[in-house]
């Protein structure tokens, strides 16, 4: 009789398959399945024929690639979790693009180089310390989920820096400016954290 009332008890519910996810969601974040679109301005639609990607600033010679040249650079597939400061996290996002390491191989960095400002069509900027863009930590993506990156998600190409809040992953990116000193970007200059590590909940200035 008592058997009827035997339960597995409050020893923790068995997680459904694949939800080792819990350890992948930074504090204060919730999981989403869709891909929310956030934008601080109109979606630029630069024709690929006039698109270019530049590396400028503290480099011996600036570098610039046309769209066609950029496509010839060695590309990689990246599967990464992303977290937006507006509190959503999306797991296993699939991108294809060019590692920032590959891009920086094409220039000679000045020894004073310490910070990078990514700049985009439409005037958006965001700042990242140079050491956080290298060693496989960041890439310029032009495909998402096997398709050309849609304009609303930053296409034709966006920077992706998955270990920082997603505002650092500049949509419509057109280049990287290498600098000696850090210069807060569009959101960093107005109350958002300069660094933006989701695991430390660095959302706002002073966090």
């Amino acid at each position, binding site marked *: 009789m008592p058997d009827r009332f035997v339960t597995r008890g409050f020893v923790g519910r068995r997680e459904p398959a694949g939800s080792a996810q819990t350890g992948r969601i930074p504090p204060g974040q919730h999981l989403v399945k869709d891909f*929310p*679109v*956030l*934008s*601080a*301005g*109109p*979606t*630029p*639609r630069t024709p690929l024929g006039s698109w270019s990607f530049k590396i400028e600033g503290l480099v011996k010679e600036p570098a610039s690639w046309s769209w066609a040249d950029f496509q010839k650079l060695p590309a990689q597939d990246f599967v990464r979790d992303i977290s937006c*400061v*507006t509190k959503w996290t999306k797991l296993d996002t699939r991108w294809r693009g060019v590692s920032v390491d590959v891009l920086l191989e094409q220039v000679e960095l000045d020894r004073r180089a310490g910070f990078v400002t990514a700049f985009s069509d*439409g*005037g958006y900027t965001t700042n990242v310390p140079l050491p956080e863009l290298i060693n496989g930590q960041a890439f310029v993506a032009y495909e998402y989920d096997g398709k050309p990156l849609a304009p609303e998600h930053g296409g034709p190409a966006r920077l992706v820096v998955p270990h920082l809040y997603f*505002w650092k992953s500049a949509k419509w990116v057109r280049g990287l400016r290498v600098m000696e000193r850090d210069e807060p970007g569009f*959101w960093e*200059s*107005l*109350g*958002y954290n300069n660094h933006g590590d989701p695991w430390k909940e660095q*959302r*706002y*200035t*002073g966090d």
Partner: protein
Amino acid sequence: MTEAMDDDLVLDGNAVAGTLAEIYGDDMTTVLAQCASCGKVDHVGGLLAFIHAPGIVLRCTACATVMIRIVQTPKGTFVDVRGKRIPAPPKS
């Protein structure tokens, strides 16, 4: 207006009337604002508003330059109006 105003995400300044009133203590939507870049004058309520973002961005209807930015955080509200001028009063 610039290209790409087919954006689903663009609203107008009236959509943020409440936030502006909270900051300035009055209805701001009928106040005139001049774009610091191209000089276009609009009511604040008529500016292009982008609110699906980490903050609120109000832009010029003619050139899309950022006129007002607002970020609300637990530590306070940040406002940048460097892109907005106060239009000169009409000469009578």
